């Protein structure tokens, strides 16, 4: 019998999982502003900043800082690595559910990530 897959801890936190899933909904090449992302996720700015920083450190999310009408604005998008990591996470979850698995199955190292 195959062992249960390990889950990526960077994505595993609920807040970061929601950030990743939301950014995954963007068509390739599109970017979402911090304020809109915060509004969709109904998170505080501080909370979202912390989650996004973690995801950037893992190279799952890319940010672009710019100015619009003289105001600073930051746009976010998923990296290719981030898309793959999320797909792998969902796949691992699916495997666990198929196996009727419980679980304490997280890994400290993000597969393919740089943490």
């Amino acid at each position, binding site marked *: 019998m195959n062992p249960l897959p390990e889950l990526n801890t960077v994505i595993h936190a609920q807040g970061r999982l929601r950030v990743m899933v939301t950014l995954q909904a963007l068509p390739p090449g*599109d970017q979402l502003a911090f304020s809109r*992302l915060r509004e969709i996720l109904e998170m505080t700015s501080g909370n979202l900043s912390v989650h996004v920083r973690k995801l950037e450190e893992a190279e799952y999310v890319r940010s672009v800082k710019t100015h619009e009408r003289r105001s600073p604005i930051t746009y976010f998008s998923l990296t290719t690595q981030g898309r793959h990591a999320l797909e792998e996470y969902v796949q691992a979850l699916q495997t666990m559910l198929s196996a009727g698995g419980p679980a304490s199955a997280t890994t400290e190292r993000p597969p393919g990530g740089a943490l």
Partner: protein
Amino acid sequence: MTAEDDGRPAEDALFDPAASRELIERQRDTAESELAPDWRLLYAVWGLALLIGYGCLYLQRTVLSGVPPAIAGVAMFLALLAALTVTTRHDIRLNRGLRGPSALAGARIGWAYVAGFAVVGVVAWSLYRGGAPEPLVWLAFAGLSLLVIGLVSMVSAAWEHERLRFGLGGWILAADALALVVGMPHAYLVLSLGGGGGFLAAAVLLTVRRAARARRP
């Protein structure tokens, strides 16, 4: 449920994979409703606009011939204005804080419609100025407008791999061709039921699909 760690290292605690999957699916639905065009709404408003607008024109030309033509014209104008207002508000809300190729492509498709309708107006005006009979001018105006809608729908849908919208564009062109064949005043009835009905049928189809997807375990 997955651990919410507010940025601190995640607890390696027991969690419920089913609840995690549910969270992902719920968030996908939220993201889709926020970041993807609501085609049900857009098809419904344009379907109603064409149904009511061309319906009024048809009734004025047939059973309600006592009503001044201007009244039916104003009804058509208001129906289209309402649909355009809903579409514009929807696009502004959708594109807030969003940038990239798809937002740019959406804006360009909008400009393609504007350019197409402007040319339709010029053609109709040229026909009128050249002494073409009034029914022919109105037939050209209605027929060319639907040609623009059908063609832009098909081309944009082909690019985005949207089968339903591609089929709807084809349906609109077929209704348009039929309207041109039957001529005035019945062309208005074809455009009302065929054109408007096509959009409304697409809206209903999407609603049914969405409900079926929501029921899926």
